């Protein structure tokens, strides 16, 4: 269970850094959620910085013990968190909610959120520090970001704390499945939620742009794409870009 305790800060360098530090110093209980209104060093995945207006968006991190997952099963964690966020957005009656492989969340072909998962091994245990960014009340984004927010989508501002609690509830539903090792329902739901699984989308592979459909995502998380011409290719995240 995550979110039994939510610790809220006005400003942190990064909620994930905070969780990691607390975890290593033994001051952290599994599932505690750290929330910040503003991150001075908010991180996206490595090079990409998460652009966020102070106080407008949800930035939260938590750690869970994933010692029970083999290295080859870790992608299921990413799938489970993505499904939780998608379920929340669907509960807000948003349509056009998709997971963009591997773990971005799109609404109406714009990015609304994403995550950063870091895995730390310590004393025979394996911890995942999960950082989630979700655009809540930000109303303007530079066009090249192709981003959106909850407020833009539903047409009114929303309470960040209420969103946080509901997102946590939805994530817990999928975390329960993960902890029970009910992997097949997770994989099935993840496929059904994938942008480009049922419809033709555009991909960029180096200089080549092509139309294709996701054939499947294998257990390791690799993307298998079938082009309209019928060729099937396997990709890792940096080898292909999904155009949305």
């Amino acid at each position, binding site marked *: 269970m995550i979110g039994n305790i939510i610790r809220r800060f006005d400003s942190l360098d990064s909620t994930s850094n905070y969780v990691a530090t607390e975890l290593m110093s033994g001051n952290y209980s599994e599932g505690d959620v750290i929330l910040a209104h503003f991150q001075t060093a908010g991180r996206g995945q490595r090079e990409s910085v998460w652009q966020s207006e102070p106080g407008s968006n949800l930035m939260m991190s938590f750690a869970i013990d994933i010692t029970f997952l083999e290295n080859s099963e870790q992608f299921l964690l990413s799938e489970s968190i993505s499904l939780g966020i998608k379920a929340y957005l669907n509960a807000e009656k948003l349509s056009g909610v998709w997971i963009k492989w591997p773990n971005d969340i799109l609404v109406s072909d714009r990015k609304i959120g994403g995550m950063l998962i*870091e895995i730390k091994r310590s004393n025979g245990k394996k911890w995942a520090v999960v950082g989630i960014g979700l655009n809540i009340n930000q109303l303007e984004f530079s066009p090249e970001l192709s981003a959106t927010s909850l407020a833009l989508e539903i047409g009114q501002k929303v309470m960040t704390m209420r969103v946080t609690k509901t997102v946590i509830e939805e994530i817990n539903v999928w975390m329960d499945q993960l902890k029970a090792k009910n992997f097949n329902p997770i994989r099935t739901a993840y496929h059904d939620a994938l942008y480009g699984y049922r419809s033709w989308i555009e991909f960029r592979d180096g200089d080549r742009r092509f139309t294709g459909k996701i054939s499947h995502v294998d257990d*390791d998380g690799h993307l298998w794409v079938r082009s309209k011409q019928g060729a099937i290719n396997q990709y890792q995240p940096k080898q292909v870009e999904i155009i949305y």
Partner: protein
Amino acid sequence: MKLTEIQDLIKFVSRSGVTEVEIEQSNFKITIKSDPTKKKGKAAAQPEAYIQPQMQMAMPQMAMPQPAPVPAPAPAAPAPTAEAPKSNEADKNANYITIKSPMIGTFYRSSSPEKDPFVSVGDEVKPGKVICIVEAMKLFNEIEAEVSGKIVKVLVDDASPVEYDQPLFLVDPS
């Protein structure tokens, strides 16, 4: 079955000339074999008995642990230790320990591009020290040293793809 009954049975089998007798009861099974090749010498006709308790209905013939065979002579190799490198690099870097990638992914030497590497050549490491990140499907795995020693060589360039079990670092444990 009582021990005396088993003894009688063994005697009976050894005298009878049959090579194998198997008796099975509800929770008990015994197989007595005598070695036909040694049958001529009276003394050699010592049958071996195997007693196999019936563990479960579903698995009626769980074998008892076999008596330990004569222990194989310890390998005569000169003082191998658990730390000795087992990869192909072992030959030319016999004294070094290879740290290998636990998974397929992308190898990173620092937590983010602008940060210093976790370790460089010459640094001392010990178990628990984070030495690199292997990113697989946007899951960033911190990899820890499992040995103590000094980094002798970094075998992979930053941000390169790595395979499962690919050597990443050479460590001098001395």
